[in-house]
């Protein structure tokens, strides 16, 4: 039963990684950029949620939606200001810019409000259920449900809506997409908006789940989500979800075995192994295209 408990904890943690990883993978899929500022969008989302709950007295869901909206706008802003003009430059230039944007956001937030951590208010009632000997808190169950619902909504957007089809077309072949009349700039902005909104949701969920937030909180979850995206195959949406869950479970299991200090190391060892043995990730294919 102990194992089942750990599995459930791992899935809860993994759902947060998965939500962040989706943004990484979507942005990479469409402009081939690892957006290292994505962890900071997550942080901004978490703080937006915090202020909304602590100072404006909003409930969990209104705060979640507000934070998603703020992050969507923020993500588009980052793209328009920092990345758009670099679209035709080398990938390394864009990557370095992304790291710069990430540091800029961290320290502007510290400059404005200080570096002290904040305790997330308790907005969700927390009861525990005993399901087959597994302690499941209503909080983590709700978090899991919210994450899964968001992933399903994303899947729907990407596969069934016009903007989703445009996103897939642009990520596959931007020039051919232009020939269909698709506005590539707007489609890229939409991708940033959706990916950032998911990171914002992850930020609020993280705050509620782990209760402590600070301006540098985006760094490690951001890197972990990046690993999750690579693990699943960067650019592949279901890959990011599976990668997130796998990473969450592995970390929890490592902790449960008594190596909790090795948790972060385990994640990075996974990254190294995947880059050595299967750089295209679990779902990636090294397929040659048919001409």
């Amino acid at each position, binding site marked *: 039963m102990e194992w089942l408990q750990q599995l459930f904890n791992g899935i809860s943690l993994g759902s947060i990684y998965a939500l962040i990883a989706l943004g990484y993978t979507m942005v990479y899929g469409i402009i081939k950029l690892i957006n290292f500022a994505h962890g900071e969008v997550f942080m901004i989302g978490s703080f937006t949620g915090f202020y909304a709950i602590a100072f404006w007295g909003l409930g969990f869901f209104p705060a979640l939606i507000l934070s998603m909206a703020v992050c969507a706008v923020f993500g588009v802003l980052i793209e328009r200001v920092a990345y758009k003009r670099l679209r035709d430059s080398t990938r390394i230039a864009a990557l370095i810019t992304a790291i710069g944007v990430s540091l800029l956001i961290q320290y502007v937030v510290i400059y404005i409000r200080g570096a002290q951590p904040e305790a997330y208010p308790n907005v969700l009632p927390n009861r525990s259920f005993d399901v087959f000997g597994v302690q499941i808190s209503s909080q983590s169950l709700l978090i899991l449900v919210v994450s899964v619902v968001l992933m399903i909504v994303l899947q729907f957007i990407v596969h069934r809506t*016009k903007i989703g*089809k*445009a996103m*897939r*077309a642009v990520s*596959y*072949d931007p*020039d*051919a*997409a*232009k*020939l*269909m*009349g*698709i*506005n590539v700039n707007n489609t890229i902005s939409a991708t940033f908006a959706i990916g950032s909104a998911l990171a914002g949701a992850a930020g609020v969920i993280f705050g509620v789940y782990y209760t402590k937030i600070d301006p540098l909180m985006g760094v490690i979850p951001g890197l972990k989500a990046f690993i999750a995206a690579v693990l699943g195959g960067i650019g592949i949406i279901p890959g990011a979800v599976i990668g997130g869950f796998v990473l969450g479970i592995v970390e929890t299991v490592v902790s449960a075995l008594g190596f909790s200090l090795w948790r972060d190391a385990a994640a990075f060892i996974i990254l190294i192994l995947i880059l050595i043995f299967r750089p295209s990730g679990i779902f990636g294919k090294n397929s040659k*295209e*048919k*001409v």
Partner: protein
Amino acid sequence: MLNVEEIDVYYGNIKALKGISLNVNEGEIVTLIGANGAGKSTLLKTLSGLLKPKKGKIEYGNKSIAGRPAQVIVKAGISHVPEGRRVFANMTVEENLELGAYLRKDLKGIRNDFEKVFELFPRLFERKKQLSGTLSGGEQQMLAMGRALMAKPKLLLLDEPSMGLAPLLVKTIFSIIEEINRNGTTILLVEQNANMALSIATRAYVIETGSVITSGTAEKLQASEEIRKAYLGGM
């Protein structure tokens, strides 16, 4: 319908088109022939908005479209079937066709055009739920053409539709091009297979290293000694 005057197009510092002029009248099939690297595809890409001319005029109808973004040009009624087909291999045949109608909002008209495209290319109907990456080269060409038709273009730009196809299939594709033309779509066709292209074209332009070296009716060019030697296998 389309009037191109003295356009210059650069790839970085390389001048790919040097003062090209040409015109296409409504209802025609006009073909551009010329060797690899002559600038034919560059010209089509400039017409559809993927490249911007440094100099010169492009008029469509009575509007200048030089340097306008691709979506404006598609909306104005020019569709481009690019070289190498460029179908979205990660999507189904049906989704590819839907994307072709991306800018249209007339659901009824779109449904109608789906049927027309399936009539023109029955193969696509059989495979509409299949990922387009699994289609054969000829089927992908049909899909690329069908996708462009879904935008309901008045002018269709076709870049090397016969590339890499078996001779029998080339014939099929060309007879479909004629049929599209008969249904009222004007066609600007780029081809290396000059024989085939001239056989269906009204008029033709011969392009060499970024300039038009000669032009005229298809019959005239077919009869010209020089053209036959250079482009038609000297028969």
